[in-house]
């Protein structure tokens, strides 16, 4: 069964370092998303991406964050200068062009900022 895959599963980084989280969405999906979940808190929407551009972003998604689809298969989330409060589980998701709203999520990438 097709699935969304994410790498790395866990990354530990020093505050101020750049981090890139990678995702391979399901191949025929055209909408891509990043969500995050701080430990013990809600899953929060970060950004949606369609047709090679951001279609919507939340207030969390500030200038330190960027997304890219560099090669038609990978979908990346970059955090330029990580802060302690960026420590969270980051989930990538994708959905089909015509759909009722079901998103397919990856297993997540746990980011720990020290």
């Amino acid at each position: 069964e097709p699935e969304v895959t994410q790498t790395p599963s866990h990354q530990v980084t020093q505050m101020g370092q750049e981090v890139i989280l990678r995702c391979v969405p399901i191949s025929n999906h055209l909408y891509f998303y990043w969500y995050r979940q701080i430990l013990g808190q809600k899953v929060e929407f970060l950004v949606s991406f369609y047709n090679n551009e951001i279609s919507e972003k939340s207030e969390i998604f500030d200038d330190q964050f960027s997304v890219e689809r560099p090669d038609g298969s990978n979908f990346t989330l970059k955090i330029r200068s990580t802060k302690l409060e960026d420590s969270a589980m980051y989930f990538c998701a994708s959905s089909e062009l015509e759909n009722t709203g079901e998103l397919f999520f990856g297993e997540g990438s746990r980011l720990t900022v020290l």
Partner: protein
Amino acid sequence: SQQGEEDPQALSIQEGENATMNCSYKTSINNLQWYRQNSGRGLVHLILIRSNEREKHSGRLRVTLDTSKKSSSLLITASRAADTASYFCATVGRLTGGGNKLTFGTGTQLKVEL
């Protein structure tokens, strides 16, 4: 903003019993979904109910939706130890740029004991 709030926050039952989780939200929705998350893992879609539906079944899952009260419930019948997980409701809204945005609730941690 659409906010799903689940109750109870935690639920502990014996195997074989039924588990009921409730979700309330604030604004109008296109549909509402329930997701499951095993500890430290990704989100798995369970069931979707459209705004014009009142009840939906899938295996041991039964979801109800009351749009007048802006609430939904998830019933798991004949629970099993393997049902132990966190359960989240998510309201779905269309993004102007296409795709769908999920707004997750706080989740119910279900523990099913042998």
